[in-house]
């Protein structure tokens, strides 16, 4: 039962971590910022509301939030958190998880296209475009991990002290991987410099514009899904940044939380010190991650024969 408790805990804590980014940005802006529990307040507010549906929409519009939350939540089930085995794991589950997140993306895009809004179409086109390069990066990283471990499951890369084994055999090239994954994190979760979640102009949005027409609990699902997705990628990056666990289990959750906070703070700092890239510069930025992952793979090729 322990893995399921941890999964529930992760779902519950994901909104809290996202608030850290807001807090960091407020700090850089010289403001006090909203409270740490802001995301919970937002979710509760949304769940109390009813919904307004556009007359153009169909059932797909309602399916969008459901599928995107379900896919993000299911993805978390495959991830070892705080040194505890995931709910379910098998050889090849990384592929399943990546494609499941793809399913979530398909439905988010389909829900946006359902509204007949030109702005949402624009956001959808970008949402369809940028993750293609991210996927290439992710698979390049997977090739590297497979080369190092001979396994194809999230549990074998990130549970226990396994990340330390990755570091041991790959050495400093692992830094490339960490940066590449961090870029993927920023892209997949629509953070600056790819997308600005706090922007006020619909024309420059990606994720936010796609969910313009969602309201009430549906919108709450979408928010929760994006918290979960961010949590998913952050956990991966944090496990690589802090590869070792203590020998005694009880301290591990604390360590996990600390390392997660570090990743979220890093994302917040990135948002505070950078501006969003012009749209045509974004693919180049994401391609950097692919280049880094490829470099790492090539270097590893020379070391491990």
């Amino acid at each position, binding site marked *: 039962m322990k893995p399921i408790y941890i999964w529930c805990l992760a779902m519950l804590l994901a909104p809290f971590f996202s608030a850290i980014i807001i807090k960091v940005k407020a700090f850089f802006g010289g403001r006090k910022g909203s409270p740490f529990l802001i995301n919970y307040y937002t979710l509760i507010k949304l769940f109390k509301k*009813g*919904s307004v*549906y*556009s*007359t*153009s*929409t*169909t059932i*797909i519009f309602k399916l969008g939030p*459901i599928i995107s*939350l*379900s*896919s993000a939540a*299911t993805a978390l*089930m495959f991830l070892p958190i705080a040194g505890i085995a995931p709910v*379910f794991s098998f*050889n*090849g589950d990384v*592929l*399943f998880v990546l*494609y*499941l997140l*793809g*399913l979530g993306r*398909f439905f988010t*895009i*389909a829900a*946006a*296209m359902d*509204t*007949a*809004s030109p*702005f*949402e*179409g*624009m956001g*959808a*086109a*970008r949402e*369809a*475009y940028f993750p*293609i390069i991210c*996927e*290439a990066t992710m*698979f*390049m990283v*997977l*090739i590297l991990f*497979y*080369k190092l471990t001979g396994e194809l499951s999230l549990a074998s890369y990130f549970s226990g002290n396994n990340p330390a084994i990755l570091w041991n055999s790959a050495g400093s090239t692992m830094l490339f991987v960490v940066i590449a994954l961090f870029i993927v994190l920023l892209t997949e979760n629509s953070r600056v410099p790819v997308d600005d979640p706090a922007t006020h102009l*619909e024309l420059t949005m990606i994720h936010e514009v796609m969910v*313009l027409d969602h309201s*009430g*609990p*549906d919108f*709450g*699902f979408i928010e929760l899904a994006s918290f979960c997705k961010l949590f998913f990628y952050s956990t991966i990056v944090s496990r690589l940044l802090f590869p070792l666990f203590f020998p005694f289990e009880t301290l591990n959750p604390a360590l996990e939380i600390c390392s997660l906070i570090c990743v979220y703070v890093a994302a917040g700092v990135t948002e505070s010190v950078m501006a969003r890239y012009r749209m045509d510069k974004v*693919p180049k930025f994401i391609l950097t991650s692919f280049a880094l992952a490829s470099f790492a*793979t090539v270097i590893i*090729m020379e070391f491990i024969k």
Partner: protein
Amino acid sequence: MNLFFLSLLIIFAGGLFAPLIRRQFFMMKIFSVFTIVAGCILGLVDAGSKLISPGEYVASFKYLKSFSLSFQIDGLSAFFLVTIFAISLLASIYSFHYMDKTDKALRTATNYLFFSLLIVSMALVVASKGMITFMLSWEIMSLSSFFLVIFNYEAIENRRAGYLYFVFSHVGAMFIFAGFGVAYAHTGSLGFGQMVSLPDTFKLIVFILFFIGFGSKAGVFPFHVWLPHAHPAAPSHISAVMSGVMIKVGIYGIIRMYVLLNYHSPVIGGIVLAAGCISGVLGVVYALGQHDLKRLLAYHSVENIGIILIGTGIGMIGVSSGNVPMAILGFSGGLLHVLNHAIFKSLLFMGAGMVLKKTGTRTIDILGGLIKKMKITGTTFLIGSLAISGLPPFNGFVSEFLIYIGGFKGVGLDRMTFAMSLIAIISLAVIGGLALACFTKVVGVVFQGEPRSAAAENVDEQGFSMLAPMLVLAGFCLIIGVYPKFFILMAMKGVSSLGLGYEWIQFEPIVRMTGNITRAAALFFAVVLFVLIIRALAYRGKSITRSGTWGCGFTQPTVKMQYTGSSYAASIIDFFRPFAPVHEDHPPIRGRMPRRKTHYHSHVNDIAELHQHNVIVRPVLFFFDKLRWMQHGDIHLYIGYILLAVIVVLFFV
């Protein structure tokens, strides 16, 4: 074997008698459809039983005294036969309501004649054992499908598409003939069995010839040029069969020749894999740029043939590097993708056929909002789109999963294999992302939003015979995606007859893998159910209102403001600019108050088509233009030519 030939006879009878009873249009359709369906069911049962219990099923007939027509059905043939019969069965049911132009009775009857011939010849190709049998069936297949493509021959572009297809299928056949010719010259035997004894260099040459020949039928880049022209021209059930099944016969040819040559050089695997990666990525890039629904689907066939070839290539590399799991996963992934693609591609073509029939147009950018009126078509099309994008829990994911795992097995091997596997995996990842972009475009622009023109406004969906096959196919997309065990075992039966020397194939690890896919899908469904319950609770007693879409403050939106498919795909196409040059025609707008109307037209150029015209067609035309003087119209000299030819033949042969 008798059952097999009986089923073919029944199918052929269904087509043969159609022109005779064409005066009773309705009766003719009932007769043809029922007979073809009955034949297909019989063939399906027969092929299925042969697949489950593989054995030596052979038959041989004397033909013109000196030749013998011999047939053999092994696991590989049986697997393809199952695909052929299953899809043809559903396509012929679909045709019942699709072909409803009473005034074109003769044409419809001819369509059934050639349709039945196409099914029969495809079945004969995969069952043939021997060069003569193979080429005879192959030519019948090419010719009958040519007549099906020019069904609407009044339109010039359809005639042009038919001509292009004719040229391509015969140039392709020429390469296959050349391959057989080289083999015959060395072995002196018209049977398949002796091809093993060729020397290695000749095996490579012969394989390359076969690959070009079969590749041009399968639609491998750069021999795919006919495909995006011919598929839209043909009636939709024919497109479904051609794209779903007929091009797979080309794949069958490649795999069969690989088995027959028994030449496991890494070069062959490399060629197949490289061709697969290029076709896969470029196929989907060109698909993104299309404005014509059926043309777009046709380019997706190029993409999926690429995925199948990637799987096959991984299998071949696995064989040459002695890695058994890699070989088995690659081949069975490729074969399963043959079946999967047949299922979702014919589903998508049938959906496109319904759209075409009800709206009268195939242009993506003037459609919209169809799912509101065409619920079944829209939903099944959505399922097909999810499946073709390779998303779980649908069937496309399962075959891609097997290919991925096979590719990852190659990552752990030597440097060359590592590089190839790396290219294969990255290509598959990029293809997956691009296919998702392309199908969100199709579903989003054609089926969602608001109708962009009058053509898309007053539509409905009718015709039980058109809807039922789509529902069945969509059902199979989900069944294979959730419970793939049976179908993977089917593909593995096909693989075990490849004669790779792995008679002891271990089913157990792969069965465990399928169990994991099923469990993971079940987990996902459980979460979806949980979320649905929470949603129901959250909305209990809440007020739900409907209003217009939020236009970001703009209060007078029109349907023309919706994002179009062209703009949706523009930035992705731009990324691949060197391979997909966009031709735009857009006169600039002049003045503050422009009076003159302007227009915008864009066309994504296929570099294969572009260069084939410059590099092959133009020089050939130039050359033959120079030889015009030989054709002077003087009959006496023509007879002289014949005499000369006879003398030359007498002396030299």
